[in-house]
């Protein structure tokens, strides 16, 4: 068991999500920083998309009632373990009674805690991911007990550093050409601010107003995490992992798959910038990410 002494701002279970149900109106959900989730699970030699805790912003406090191995990746949320500060990227052993305490972000926005063995959590449509909008599973609440069945032993602590830049590469979206030249320039060259109403469903950005050449409304169409849409007020919204299945705002751009995880490490008040990408760059970046994970898995297999 893991006792939730303090739930914090938003701590919830996330895994690879439930893609495949958009035609049923169901968001994909899943970890906002899918790369950090995968690294956390790989550190414990688990399938990379296994359920783990996604801790947003901090303020969370957990007490372990058993001994076992855990891995912490993603944001540096000022965590301390048993009173000692701990930076992200580690796998380490916990003992009964020990406390993992997250305070507030020093770098990044979401931390991932993977657990060796089995974390017994309810699954909805094949995924343990919490989806607040759909009402699938609930975020952690103070006083909750997580059913953890530890298994496996490891050679020792291990540290893996994860990258991050805060600049996302973007491909033009289906309605890119319906925005005027000035809007294109402003989109690529502005330093956008992430608004306070941002959440796992979407990040509202503020900055200069982006104008369309045509003002007509679009019929509803499928949208994805990473879609950059622009409503009538000219302020872009980047959709997050809990993005609804369909929407009607014009799609100015799409964050490339390999950079989508970075969105998970940006929180309200932070700045965000965009770099134009080509289809070839997007493919190369994805292949590089697959290679990185494969090398990491091979490295961890020997440690």
């Amino acid at each position, binding site marked *: 068991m893991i006792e939730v002494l303090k739930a914090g701002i938003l701590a919830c279970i996330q895994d690879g999500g439930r893609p495949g149900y958009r035609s049923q109106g169901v968001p994909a959900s899943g970890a906002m920083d899918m790369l950090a989730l995968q690294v956390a699970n790989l550190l414990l030699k688990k399938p990379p998309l296994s359920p783990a805790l996604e801790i947003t912003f901090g303020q969370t406090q957990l007490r372990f009632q058993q001994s076992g191995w855990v891995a912490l990746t993603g944001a540096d949320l000022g965590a301390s373990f048993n009173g000692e500060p701990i930076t992200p990227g580690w796998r380490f052993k916990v003992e009964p009674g020990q406390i993992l305490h997250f305070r507030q972000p020093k770098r990044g926005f979401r931390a991932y805690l993977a657990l060796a063995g089995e974390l017994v959590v309810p699954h909805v449509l094949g995924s343990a991911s919490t989806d607040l909008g759909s009402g699938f599973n609930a975020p952690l609440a103070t006083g909750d007990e997580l059913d953890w069945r530890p298994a496996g032993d490891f050679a020792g602590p291990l540290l893996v550093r994860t990258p991050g830049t805060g600049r996302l590469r973007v491909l033009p979206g289906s309605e890119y050409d319906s925005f005027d030249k000035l809007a294109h320039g402003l989109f690529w060259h502005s330093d956008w601010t992430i608004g306070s109403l941002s959440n796992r469903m979407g990040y509202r950005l503020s900055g200069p107003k982006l104008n369309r050449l045509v003002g007509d409304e679009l019929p509803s169409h499928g949208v994805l995490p990473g879609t950059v849409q622009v409503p009538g007020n000219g302020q872009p919204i980047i959709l997050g992992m809990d993005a609804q299945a*369909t929407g009607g705002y014009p799609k100015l751009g799409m964050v490339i798959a390999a950079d989508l995880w970075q969105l998970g490490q940006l929180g309200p008040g932070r700045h965000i910038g965009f770099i134009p990408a080509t289809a070839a760059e997007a493919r190369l970046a*994805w292949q590089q990410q697959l290679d990185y994970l494969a090398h990491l898995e091979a490295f961890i297999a020997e440690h």
Partner: protein
Amino acid sequence: MILTWSALGDRALVLTLEEADPAAQRQLHWLARQLAQSPALSEAVPGMGNLTLVLNSPLADIPALAQQALALWDKRPEAAPAGQLHKIKVRYQGPDLHQVAEYSGLTEQAVVERHAKATYEVAFIGFMPGFAYLTGMDKRLAMPRRAEPRVQVPAGAVAIAGQQTGLYPRQSPGGWQIIGYADTPLFDINQSPPALLQPGDQIQFEVSRD
């Protein structure tokens, strides 16, 4: 009926009908069912006059998939069949029935009769799990959304917004005008598929006095 395509980043492509009509929308649903078998695709998501194909991998060959989809489109049946017919009982006792009647200049009785007389078709599903966007509503019943959305619309609410009508599968905030309630479960995670109403299905509402 001309279908064009565009890439949506490195993870999807969008097929768009040049002109959408109910017959072509049925053909899109036919296409979605054919493509659902494709190993390269994670899903085919119908919209209003469009279909978004979500890829399993960003390494997929998008132009080749688009060509494959367009080749299938060329083989579409002239008149694609509608899906299953559902009859759903509705208690027309919603809090906005009065306003809809006033706005349309009809009696409440006439609003109910017209709403229950039509056969609706599911154009696509979105907004929330199992929420079906229905086409086929009597134009006389069209009404703008509420100026102030309700914080909570109960599950089963039957409502109108603009030219559209629909049912809320679960309690949620919403700005549609509520004219009635249905008890039919619209979304069940233990069913496959989980949504009762599928793209292309037909719906008839029956007036319930209970």
